[in-house]
């Protein structure tokens, strides 16, 4: 892995964290309409995938994958516009919060129905390959969502068609309030891979550099020998399901254990240890990111909301 990639990971994660911290504050200040859902503590996997992927690749992020959006080029201002329902945001205010994407960046806008997007990104990759493009798909999914029929149908279909697709299961141990033990009975979610006849890979989900190093060769190989793989990353949701949720059902020791392995801390330490950044450099980077987020937020607050007269625009294409 080259140095630029390491710094890319750090910058993406810092930006993600700064945006989400801001969203959380705005929510508790009552300045956000609707709920706030973050990937606090889960920034590593999205950043790593963004680091590995190629321009023509396609992505189906879930609600905890802001870092993937950032890594694929979503601007902080677009992010705030989305959360504020602004006219020029990624969904023009038609959708809110995490339900956005940008196909120019290869990123599908998720629907809420868990599992439903895996087949979509898989179909997108099928299309691009039919069109002669080299394209690999990346689908993110939670531990809870592996229980959906959609997860199963999509992974099986992709496996059978040998779609180059990496399905990244982010096991953060809870689905809303429901712990793994009430969600599945296999020991690890990667145990499901064999049932689809695909390779399964289990990794530490809080180490972006480790993830990038481990997955880059896998993805390179997928491009040569198209097939579907299942990756389980171990991580932790460090906040509630949304900011309305005090997550008192999560044992505090569990949180503490993962706090000690916060993806930003882990990445910062590796970069410092490898001499890729020094403390003043880090401070400067963090300040720069904070400033960009400040400016983006302020700009987005000034951006106009959609006009009610546009309500019916675009229900159908070509009209």
């Amino acid at each position, binding site marked *: 892995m080259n140095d630029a990639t390491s710094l890319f990971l750090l910058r993406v994660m810092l930006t993600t964290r700064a945006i989400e911290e801001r969203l959380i504050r705005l929510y508790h200040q009552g300045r956000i309409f609707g709920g706030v859902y973050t990937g606090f503590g889960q920034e590593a996997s999205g950043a790593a995938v963004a680091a590995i992927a190629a321009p023509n690749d396609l992505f189906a992020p879930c609600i905890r994958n802001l870092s993937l959006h950032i890594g694929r080029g979503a601007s902080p201002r677009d992010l705030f516009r989305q959360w504020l329902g602004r006219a020029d945001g990624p969904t023009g205010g038609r959708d809110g919060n995490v339900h956005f994407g940008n196909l120019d960046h290869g990123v599908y806008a998720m629907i809420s129905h868990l599992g439903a997007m895996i087949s979509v990104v898989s179909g997108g990759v099928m299309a691009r390959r039919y069109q002669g493009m080299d394209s690999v798909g990346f689908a993110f999914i939670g531990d809870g969502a592996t229980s959906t029929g959609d997860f199963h149908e999509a992974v099986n279909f992709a496996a059978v068609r040998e779609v180059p697709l990496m399905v990244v299961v982010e096991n953060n141990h809870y689905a*809303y309030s429901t712990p793994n033990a009430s969600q599945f009975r296999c020991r690890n979610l990667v145990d499901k891979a064999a049932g689809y006849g695909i390779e399964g890979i289990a990794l530490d989900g809080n180490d972006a550099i480790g993830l990038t190093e481990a997955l880059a060769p896998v993805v390179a190989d997928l491009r040569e020998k198209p097939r579907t793989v299942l990756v389980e990353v171990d991580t932790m949701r460090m906040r509630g399901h949304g900011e309305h949720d005090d997550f008192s059902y999560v044992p505090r020791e569990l949180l503490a254990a993962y706090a000690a392995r916060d993806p930003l801390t882990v990445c910062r330490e590796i970069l410092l240890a490898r001499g890729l950044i020094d403390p003043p450099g880090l401070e400067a980077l963090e300040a720069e990111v904070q400033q960009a987020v400040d400016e983006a937020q302020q700009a987005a607050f000034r951006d106009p909301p959609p006009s*009610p007269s546009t*309500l019916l625009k675009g229900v159908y294409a070509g009209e």
Partner: protein
Amino acid sequence: MPVNEITYLEGIRQGLQHTMQEDPDVILFGQDVGSFGGAFKVTTGFLEAFGAARVFNTPICESAMLGAAIGMASQGLKPVLEVQFADFATTAIHQLLNNAGTMHYRTGVAVPMTVRAPCGGGFGGGPFHSEELEAFFCHMPGIKVVYPAFPSDARSLLVAAIHDPNPVVFLENKYLYRHIKELVPEAIAPIRIGSARVCRSGQDAVVLTYGAMVHEAIQAAEHLAADMGYRVMVVDMRTLKPYDTDTVIATVAATNRVLIVHEGWHTCGFGAELAALVAEQAFHLLDAPVRRLTAPDCPVPFAPDLEKAYRPNAARIEEALVELLEY
């Protein structure tokens, strides 16, 4: 008779609690309904009160949840299943339509199950947490559909739904959960599934509606009375399948002008059914064409200004009523 003020949400809670206390055959399950009390906290304390055999969390699998409810109901239990949002029931329409809805017809085995489905918008939920799907459910043979607008009705109708020997979709309007309060007696009054509620009397026109729009319609009618002296009747359909055709016809006979209001989509919505019924059976009673005021055929938008334009409200009901009254 002691009287308490309760919310719509509390009405649902009390109905469920009462039924579970009285009848050990009632079982509750769904995503996060256990110690967490469900996404909307309707079932807080139920796990502790009724135990893990009667109250349990499920994995995220709407189809298997519905299937399990069908299996339980077929054995004489009365399962109550909470889907976290009605929107997600669309992943398992076949279990309702084809399995629950046909079992008694095909085999004579009754399926007394209740599906609690929080629905409706008005709070920035966006396209996937705001849907009104009653038209789908009402189109399904063998399924009953209940949709209360008041705390007292929510309480009584949930009891009725659970004891009904058929699969019942119990729609809960999320906007009403904490917005609507009502004084109710201690004892739960029985309500028959299939009976509408005349919420406001009047003889100049009638608004046929349900869910959150009932309260918007009442407000519109009050404005109109104050501003222009019109007396507008408001009917809360309250149960949508079967629906109360007698009350519909009687109120049309009494008013001769009909406005139908709902926050679900227009084309093939429940409003179409009501309008068709009126057109077929009360044609001779009409002094003006029946009129529908509904959400447009458009995903539920997130941005507050867009959702306001999307969702009917008191002001737009009033406007439509004025046009109707001046026809």
